[in-house]
């Protein structure tokens, strides 16, 4: 079981790097969506006997993270009519290198922290930290609103990954994390509505500069 689990977490960690390296917004969205779907399947692997509730959570997660939010993001892309991140604040190669360093650091950190015996051999903790840091890099290093939302989505995936450590003992706390998806939805709906209502030319948050000292 741990083998399959670690394989999927490893895949999610690889998708972090794909998202950090790609300049085309559709591929960033694609990476975030795929990562969300991978994570959605994980609870099924964690539990030995299949609970109805766990299956329901898995289906809901895959649907929301894999289809609903990416769909909304693609719609925002269409109305905003943009495709590429032209001027990231942090270049693609530096962010990829930082992401790689974060992944290595996360594995080292995961080895140093005290873990319960049943979690000791899984990649859950390193995967969670690497994903959180990658999400942060995207959130802070990119200029386009949609890239930032993808960064938030990946940050949130990392938190969800960490939550899987606790899903057996405190399922309600972990499931409350679904509210973060609501935040993402508000972001994207905000972009779409604003785009429809008013001119907001390039959806470049670098232009959101009328409020400053």
């Amino acid at each position, binding site marked *: 079981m741990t083998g399959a689990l670690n394989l999927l977490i490893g895949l999610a960690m690889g998708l972090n790097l794909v998202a950090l390296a790609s300049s085309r917004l559709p591929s960033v969205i694609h990476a975030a969506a795929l990562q969300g779907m991978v994570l959605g399947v994980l609870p099924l692997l964690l539990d030995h006997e299949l609970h109805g509730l766990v299956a329901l959570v898995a289906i809901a997660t895959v649907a929301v993270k894999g289809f609903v939010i990416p769909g909304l993001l693609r719609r925002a892309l269409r109305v905003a009519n943009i495709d590429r991140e032209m001027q990231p604040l942090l270049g693609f190669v530096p962010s990829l290198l930082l992401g790689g360093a974060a992944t290595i650091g996360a594995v080292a950190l995961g080895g140093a*922290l*005290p*873990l*319960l015996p049943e979690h000791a051999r899984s990649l859950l903790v390193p995967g969670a930290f690497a994903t*959180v840091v990658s999400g942060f890099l995207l*959130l802070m290093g990119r200029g386009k*609103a949609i890239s*930032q939302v993808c960064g*938030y989505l990946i*940050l*949130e995936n*990392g*938190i969800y990954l*960490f*939550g899987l*450590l*606790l899903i057996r*003992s*405190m399922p*309600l*706390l*972990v499931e*409350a*994390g679904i*509210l*973060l998806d*609501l*935040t993402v939805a*508000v*972001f994207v709906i*905000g972009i779409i509505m*604003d785009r429809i209502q*008013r001119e*907001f030319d390039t959806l470049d*948050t670098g232009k*959101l500069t*009328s*409020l400053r*000292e």
Partner: protein
Amino acid sequence: MRELALIAVPLLAAALAVVWPTERTRPWLLPAAGLTHAVFALWLLVTPPTLVANAWFGFDAMARATLPMVSLLFLVCSVYGVAYLKLRVERHNRLFIVALLVLLGLLSLALQAQHLGLLWVAAEAATLMTVPLLHFNGTARAFEASWKYLLIGGTGIALSLLGSFCLGYASLHGGGGGDLTFATLADRGASLTRPWLIAAWVLLLAGYGTKMGLAPMHTWKPDAYGEAPAVVGALLAGGMTTMAFVAVLRVKQVVDAAGASAMTERTLLAFGLFSMLVAALFLLGTPDFKRMLAYSSVEHMGILTVGAALGGAGIWAALFHVWTNSLTKGALFLSAGNIRRAAGGRTVDEVAGMAWRSPISARMFVIGVLAVTACPPFGPFFSELRIVAAAFQSDSKLVAAAFLGCLLFAFFGLTRLTFAIVDGRPRAAARAIGRRFPETSGIILPPLVFLAFSLWLGLATPSLLRESWTAAAKLFLPTP
């Protein structure tokens, strides 16, 4: 049951506001719900209920020491809200009123939450509920402010969820079950695994500190307070930040019980003094009087945090300051809203001579600024004096010196800008706008009431409130 009413009343009123047919009469739901809420809150303050052990939520000493203030703040703001929405008939008010009422319900839930997860859910929902309030004016600047608020606030709230998970894992690894009520966590304090506990404290402080607006996570605040309607600014500065401060205090209680109080105190002190310093520096530079209020709020969050770092007497003083600061800020935000409307601008370049254009609001604004910069006999003077006294008691003279130095610079910054917009010759353009917005009693009385409260809290602090702060400060272990 009464403590449930604090949540149910605003939510029911919100549901009523959704189906209410006429725009003109809908605003009256705000004071109606606010009054009912305040009656319940006062009743609970006078006769606190017995607590159920291990309940997920309840009106405990901490809620008793803070929630009545939020209720009072909302009640007075809601009266102003009726007058304000009458001036803004061109905007639909349904979403605004519903969001305000739901926000009150969520703040009541968060302040009473005894469970780590429930607290987070309430804080997250309250964050989302604020977005339509900030976006009420519908301008590009309002969109920018709500975008930044959601991005920074959303990241903060995500970090606090990660911190909550870390605290959960600290309990799980220490052999505890899935019980995440604060009382249970504090009881099992010694068994919490140390590395996870430290990670949880750092993440939760960063997360809820973002909601409070501590520097360097304060950057959403000037934009949000600058663009938000006055009522929303007052409720954010007095209600939302209080919720976040209480969240930090509740987590501190658990971490202290685990024997890490030296760490919590040091980090809180560093964040507090840094926030005060950053706020003082920005106050000296900003040309915009609504953003000035945001930096003043950052400064006062720093003051609260320094108070919380000083242990028992400091926490008592911080809770006192929660009351005096929030109610004084109410007067400032509401009178600043009046000035902003009558002046048609917000920076020193556009606004001058408001003592002529809107004389009563300008006077209240000046008095409010003097009150908030701790001039006696207003409340903030006494609460800040208590914090300085607590610093001397715990023999941290350097802290007291840095604290007073930051206060002095903030005073320079605030008075500089205030007198620049109040004195001088009024701009010609403001004349026509000013005539459109006469100073009616609906927009004058609420800030006046806030000033009266600030004065009353300073001159004759009710013994009931003193007793409630003492009870809340007792929740924290006496620090050596």
